[in-house]
């Protein structure tokens, strides 16, 4: 089975990130997990290392509603990065607002939109989409 090298979770709900990390380990989703509680934290970490592909995540699970910098604001900065690596971005949100789905579709970098809770099946689906 394919797996991600580094997965990145950006979500201010600490309970959610704890549970997701546990679930990811259980199904062997990735080698390691980076957790950030808001978009700003994530940007501060990713920006300095964006030219060293081996330290960059290959998948980002991004929440929308977060303090300081929310998911959209994170994406607006993130798309300006010149990254030498394919990073798949999934929106993982509690929002069932249709406007959010439409907005997500406007970002080329966003591969899919998941509404919480995330099931094992969702994670497996992400794994199956890894390009060989």
């Amino acid at each position, binding site marked *: 089975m394919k797996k991600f090298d580094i997965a990145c979770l950006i979500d201010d709900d600490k*309970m959610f990130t704890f*549970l997701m990390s546990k*679930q990811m380990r259980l199904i062997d989703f990735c080698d390691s997990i980076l957790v950030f509680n808001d978009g700003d934290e994530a940007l501060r970490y990713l920006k300095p290392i964006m030219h060293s592909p081996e330290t960059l995540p290959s998948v980002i699970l991004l929440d929308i509603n977060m303090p300081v910098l929310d998911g959209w604001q994170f994406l607006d900065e993130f798309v300006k990065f010149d990254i030498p690596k394919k990073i798949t971005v999934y929106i993982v949100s509690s929002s069932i607002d249709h406007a959010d789905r439409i907005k997500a579709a406007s970002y080329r970098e966003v591969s899919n939109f998941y509404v919480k*809770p995330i099931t094992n099946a969702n994670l497996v689906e992400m794994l199956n989409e890894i390009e060989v």
Partner: protein
Amino acid sequence: MQTELRLYKNIAPLAGLGIWEHDLVKDVIYWNDVVRVILELGEVAYPSVDEALSYYKDPVKARHLIDRAVLSGSPESADLELIGAKGTHKCVNIRIQAEYSKGKCVRIYGTIQDITAHKKLLKALEEREQRFANAFDHAPIGMALVSLTGGWIKVNTSLCELFGYAEEDFLQHTFQDFTFPADLDADLKQLQQLIAGKISTYSMEKRYYHADGRLIWALLNVSLVRNDLGEPLYFVSQIKDVTERKRNMEIIRDQNGRLLNFAHIVSHNLRSHSGNIRMLTSMIQQEEDEAEKDQMLRLLDDNAANLLETLEHLNEIVRIHAGEEKERPELPLTRELDRVLTILSPSIMASQANIIKDVPDDVKVAFDPAYLESVLVNLISNALKYRHPDRRPELIIRTIFCDGVPLLSVADNGLGIDLKLHGHKLFGMYKTFHRHPDARGMGLFLVKNQVEAMGGQIWAESQPGVGTTFFVQFNPVYV
């Protein structure tokens, strides 16, 4: 060529002109046939004067007319009612002249003409005009006749009441004088189209100034009256007060907006908790290690507690808006502010904040006391909480009057916030912008809801690294 007599004998019936004379000397009466027809008499002998007068509904009046003519010696005329021999009610015009010889009245003569049809027409016309005048004067909506240049020609009672002016005040002004400037152009353009004959009527919603200076929203209907030649004469305007409807629509729009916003908040916040609970339960089911299971059960418990807390927060918002009809006593702002500053004095002292208060003693606001305290506590404690690490906090609390309504500003020299980035969620639920351990994202959300529930508005200006100013526009105190 007919003789004069013949011509006159032929023409009189043609014109429907009854001719008569009474020779007082010989006491002889002469009538032409038209008189017979009017009186509905056959080929009978000429009646006596009294008999002739008896056909009139009011013989005394007829007699007076004769007397007047005899006395004055000049032509006299009157419209009288008579009842024909067959009982038909008629209206006739009588002309009468007395002739004198040697100072003595020798003859009276005159004409009689049936004007029943003409009178009926006049009466119908009069009735129609009366009906229009009644409809105009007593219409429940404002009506006016307006000249081609905009001058008020005639206004009805409803319009006077609507605008708060007396009719005389109207007649000295044009509709342009009363129109809210931004709405004038659209109105004038339509008037031109009406005069040009491109449209036959138009209606629009526009604003006028009431006599007391406030704005009223009205639905205006205008049509143009033209003369027989098609030349424009004047406009007929109907003006209906829709201020109340407009205001209600705004209230409904506001409420719908808040309701939708609330639905999103509920959906989002409940979903994040229930999502976690769902994940936990499915993981508990799969877990075989008892110790791990126990840990997850404890997490489940935490989550249930969080869910309850969120529900309480949401409930608070429902309570605020359910209480929109609650009392709004007039509170002296300085007194309330001083009270709040006393409550907050420990944190003011701890942060060594310098507080400058510039609120006149007589400023009063119509507000629920608990909400006012909440608004002031939140705005002031936020200014202290998000102070700049490099300088002593300074707060300027000030009220100015904006259109007669008190506007409170709370300005700090704190961290500031990038409103371009965060402005749209500044007052959102669970939105926080600084990593402060006490930041819950509830304070400003509650404040905004409380201010709006009291009919006010709140907004902010800020510059990152320089400071933030919050503005609270209170609802005017209606006396």
